[in-house]
């Protein structure tokens, strides 16, 4: 078990390292284009040369990479050209906001989707099952930007119940959280619900559930003690990996609702060629994603006795 954990962690670190190298190479191998991005297309060659020299871009790439990595590890993410400030100053608060968004989303989505999935899978082919499946097919078909548009149309334009932007201009406001969270939940819950349903349905068909029923156990006990634990092993991984999906959804939702979060920051950095900021944001995203994957793997192993004890 210790070896497994160590291997998994080492692999996680290696992945992050590999990604950081690729990322750095992609963004910084062509220094000329960085200068163009920063100084604009109408700058002269001399201007660019001077700028590159001044900012240390003329040194070999591996030197710059190591320097960047060292700085990154101590929390110095460089300067943002877009915001004219240190990247760290803008990044952390934004990440906090996104964390809040994710917390609300997960806190509501997971109980709903697990319950629906379990109910649907418990009696496969029943009316409940069909309705839940159909509902989840529909919701996963509506992209985040579309549901954002449609929900704004209903709740903001038509009913006038909710604010259309979530910029927190007057400080934190729960009402401004509702729409972004709703959009994220709608797109993501169907996927988790369907995975849970499939897993539950498979378990309910398995011979050991038959054994439990023919042992004379009450149906409730069969479901709660025998089916549920086995049925939730597979969705567990899916749920943890949803964080990865959520990071994508967050970009759209934050952009649409002008929510001051990490996703909107990444997008803004990309649209404005803010190299240091892109690097920092992308690295953070990867760290979150790879980290959750590792947790998912370890958790899966822990939950599944067939793997845990061999």
């Amino acid at each position: 078990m210790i070896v497994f954990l160590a291997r998994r962690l080492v692999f996680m670190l290696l992945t992050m390292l590999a990604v950081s190298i690729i990322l750095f190479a992609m963004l910084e191998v062509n220094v000329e284009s960085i200068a163009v991005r920063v100084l604009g297309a109408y700058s002269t060659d001399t201007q660019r040369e001077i700028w590159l020299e001044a900012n240390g871009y003329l040194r070999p790439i591996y030197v710059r990479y190591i320097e960047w990595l060292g700085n990154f590890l101590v929390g110095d993410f460089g300067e943002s050209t877009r915001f004219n400030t240190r990247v760290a100053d803008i990044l952390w608060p934004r990440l906090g906001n996104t964390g809040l968004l994710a917390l609300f989303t997960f806190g509501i989505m997971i109980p709903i989707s697990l319950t629906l999935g379990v109910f649907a899978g418990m009696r496969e082919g029943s009316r409940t099952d069909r309705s839940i499946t159909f509902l989840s097919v529909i919701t996963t078909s509506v992209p985040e930007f579309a549901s954002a548009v449609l929900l704004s149309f209903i709740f903001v334009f038509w009913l006038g119940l909710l604010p259309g932007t979530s910029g927190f201009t007057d400080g934190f406001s729960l009402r401004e959280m509702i729409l972004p969270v709703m959009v994220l939940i709608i797109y993501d819950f169907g996927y988790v619900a369907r995975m849970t349903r499939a897993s539950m349905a498979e378990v309910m068909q398995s011979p050991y559930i038959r054994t439990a029923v023919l042992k004379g156990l009450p149906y409730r006990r069969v479901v709660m003690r025998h089916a549920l634990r086995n049925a939730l092993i597979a969705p567990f991984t899916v749920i943890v990996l949803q964080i990865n999906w959520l990071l994508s959804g967050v970009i759209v939702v934050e952009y649409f609702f002008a929510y001051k979060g990490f996703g909107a920051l990444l997008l803004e950095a990309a649209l404005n060629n803010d190299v240091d900021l892109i690097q920092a944001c992308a690295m953070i995203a990867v760290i979150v994603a790879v980290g959750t994957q590792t947790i998912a793997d370890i958790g899966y192993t822990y939950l599944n006795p067939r793997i845990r004890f061999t």
Partner: protein
Amino acid sequence: MNGTASTEPVLQIDGLNISYFTRAAEIPAVIDFNLTVAPGEAVGVVGESGCGKSTVAMAIMRYMGSAGRIMDGSIRFKGRDMMEMSDEELRDLRGSEIAMVYQEPMAALNPSMKIGRQLMEVPLFHEPGCTEDDARRRAAEMLANVRLPDAERVMEAYPHQISGGQQQRVVIAMALLSNPSLLLLDEPTTALDVTVEAGIVQLIADISRQFGTAMVYISHNLGLILETCDRVAVMYSGEVVEEAPVADIFDRPQHPYTRGLFGCIPTPGRDKNARPLKPIRGRLPLPHQRPPGCNFWPRCDHFEGGRCDTQSIPLEVSDDTRGHSVRCLRWNEIDWSLANTGVESRPPPEVGEVVLQADEMQKYYPVHDRSLAAILSGRSVRYVKANEDISFVARKGQTVAIVGESGCGKSTFAKVLMGLETATGGKLSFNDDDITTKVIADRKTRQVRSLQMVFQNPNDTLNPSMTVGGQIARVIRKFGVETDRAKVQERVLSLLDLVKLPRDFAKRRPRQLSGGQKQRVGIARAFAGNPAVVVADEPVSALDVSVQAAVTGLLMDIQREFETTLLFISHDMGVVRYLADRVVVMYLGQIMEQGTTDEVFEPPYHPYTEALLSAVPIADTSVEKKNIVLEGPLPSVLDPPKGCPFNTRCPRKLGAICETERPAVHKTVNGHAIACHIPLAELESYEPVIKTAAE
């Protein structure tokens, strides 16, 4: 048998009809099923796949799933009508009064719950006053009762941590915990190795004696039924065709199907040359394509047009005193002494020069152990000795059987021989060419096509997305037998003729074929390049008895015609005795014994051979068998015992020498060889395991 008129039957089923519903139609699965089980009685229900026997078991439990429905009839348990019971009442009955043992023990146990907890649930839910401690104590006691050593450890284990045989013992313990009046056993040993099966069968027999539990034993294996049951019902295509005390079914079968079945089973008296098997022709009708009248008439030799195919046939009592009934209009008209003809005996085939020779061949697989302890101690790479010192020869036209249980290395040997793997030591030669380290790519086309294989699983052997003809044609072209399009096609058709399949099968896809037909195509494909050696890896073990006989017969005929050397890999001693000329017995990668079939099946035996012979159930009442049950599970190939690999389970173990030294090989004149520490003279003194009563 021991049920008297005054005792109320435990189970009484009358006129039971069960159908499955698909979108297309209603498919009757069980028709007019009657069965009475007296207290303490063991009743067998036997039949081939799809005959409805498992459906009956599930109906008794009233557990049908969404597609199945009981259409008609009554099931009474101790006089109470089960059809009228509420869910509540059923729940009280299940697991306490009626308990069940399942086919696949691994699947039947909850993988993420400790075994102790799964056992404890039974008393906890069926006996109101039962405490946790009581339940735990009783679970442990019951584990000891089913002869599981170290009950405490098993209680704390998860199902995947114990072996298949132990899992089945746990399932049996779970069934017995509430001391049920009726035990349903649905193919309880089918998924297990023979020697493990023998232990479970004996346990079941002991249970019925010890607890007086009535049993319904469902199986496809007549031999097992003979060993375990008092009475037996034979099912065919949804109906019971014959029911009688077990001895009467075996000695005086009255239904043509029952008779036909016995003709298909390789019992010790059978011999491929002198007394070949007589397969039942045709195939089992699909449930929605049953013929009018008797379901069996299209395959019956005693069919009488206008009578058998017009009316539905009732189950008729043929012998009131012994309780024998049969579903046949002509049961008392058929003269069985005239019927047993049509299979001629033949002289044994000529055996030619050596074709295949293995000399101390070895195959080791490296296994990487990535645990910390192994890495630190520098032993991170270990070897699985899948084959160790394999030496034997096979001659032209000869059938050599390689027999052994799972993990004995028989399939690995086939892989090395076929060139899918290479040996790691020793020598393997084919027609005097050294092929020890030659994978297929290094072999000449001539060699590749001379060494072909017939595979085990009929559903796997053919590519589902190609036509039958296309697959055979590919082989013909690949081996360069024919290249011209028309000639290839002609050869395809003649190969279909060879395996006795209709020519229009060439255009069919595998899913339109039955299991037996697929195996025939597999045989045609293997023989497409006129091979010198064919390796048949359990070619019939997945088929029904009646189909088995036909496919085995076909394989033997073709082999005889082309004087092919056949390496027959099997776990079934019955089949091996029937068709092999020479037998090689393997255990954990090593050869325990080899010799001609007669030599291996008569003393002197290796103790393992002796146990194997004893473990195989025999469907013949005239055979007496010594009962040897091996203790302990099959060791893992990863960690085989030192010394003689069989020492951990050997009932004739001498002592320390067996655990430390590899036994020397006793050789007799004809190449009969036994690897054992016990002196040959002593081995010779053993009584034969199987004795046939003088007829």
